[in-house]
């Protein structure tokens, strides 16, 4: 929103404010918050172009992923949080290009994003377990946000496959690494798996 405008801030602008406030609450300094904001804004650019409905489940995905990491995981590392905003394992076409990430958020964020394991691989659990711990947490948070909205995708088979993989791989990873994320995965899988397997 431009300065002095009377228009109410859009949902993504409010999410940007929320992330900034939450990050400050978790001890992230001004420079770090700036980087997180840059990551989030870069993630919103392709979304604003192709998602006209601001209630679309993917519209605020980058911000929600960062919010899970801040609120549930307690992760306050700006590079990881900025990179988390720039990963979209369900709609990779919505991810800003490497050049855009480099331009808006820098090499460290780009390098971090490159390390995040993607779903669909036979070796996914091994890759997740072998990841550096912050990378693993970002992968878990990002996928959790997709899984809890899978029933809104409108593609039953894709949602079913995602939940099967979620309970087989991501839940297993969460159980080994973060108790709260494990609880959230357990709850999510228990709720939705019965919908897709009965």
């Amino acid at each position, binding site marked *: 929103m431009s300065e002095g405008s009377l228009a109410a801030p859009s*949902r*993504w602008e*409010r*999410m940007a404010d*929320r992330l900034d406030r939450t990050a400050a609450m978790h001890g992230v300094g001004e420079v770090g918050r700036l980087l997180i904001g840059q990551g989030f804004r870069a993630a919103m650019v392709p979304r604003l172009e192709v998602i006209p409905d601001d*209630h679309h*489940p993917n519209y*605020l995905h980058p*911000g*929600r992923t960062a*919010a*899970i990491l801040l*609120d*549930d995981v307690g992760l306050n590392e700006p590079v990881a949080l900025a990179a988390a905003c720039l990963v979209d394992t369900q709609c990779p076409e919505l991810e800003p290009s490497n050049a855009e990430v480099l331009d808006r958020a820098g090499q460290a964020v780009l390098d971090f994003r490159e390390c995040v394991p993607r779903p669909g691989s036979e070796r996914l659990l091994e890759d997740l377990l072998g990841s550096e711990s912050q990378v693993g947490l970002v992968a878990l948070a990002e996928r959790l946000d997709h899984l*809890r*909205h899978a*029933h*809104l995708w409108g593609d039953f088979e894709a949602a079913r496959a995602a939940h099967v993989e979620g309970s087989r791989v991501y839940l297993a990873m969460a159980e080994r690494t973060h108790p*709260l994320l494990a*609880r*959230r995965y357990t*709850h*999510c899988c228990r*709720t*939705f798996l019965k*919908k897709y397997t009965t």
Partner: protein
Amino acid sequence: MKIYTKTGDGGDTGLFGGGRVPKSHPRVDAYGTVDELNSFVGLAVVTVLDEGVQQGLQAIQHDLFALGAILATAAPDGTRPQPETPDLPLGRIAEMEESIDQATAEVEELRDFILPGGTRGAALLHVCRTVCRRAERAVVALAASEPVEGGVVRYLNRLSDLFFVWARLENHRGGEPDVLWTKD
């Protein structure tokens, strides 16, 4: 057709199927509160932004109308035939439970008390929740003196839980955090 009948000017009202009771009667309080709830649900329908919640609310409006008709029917006293009332939508209870589970899995885990608020739609869903609780209390009060179908209380109890999670869902899908209660 004139909307006013003047028959209630003396402070009493006719029940469905016959019989008149004072407007302060627990039965009138019960179905009147359900009617009030339905009005707030109507307001919520045109206020919430989430399409799924909106559709769910519309289904509930039909349920509440049926529930109001059931409650507005005089208890059988053996002197007049019982009128035909709509069936209580008990099947909806299982649907509501599934919706509650799904919404709970979707929103952030609840670790603090929350205050009614967030988006306009969420705040209104909290109003629906509290009016629903009042309707439930009114039905329980009625049941102390007259027979009431057991499913009515179960339906209202589950419905207020659903309003609570839908309020959170409306905030969540709109990117608004819950408003947390703080001691200070």
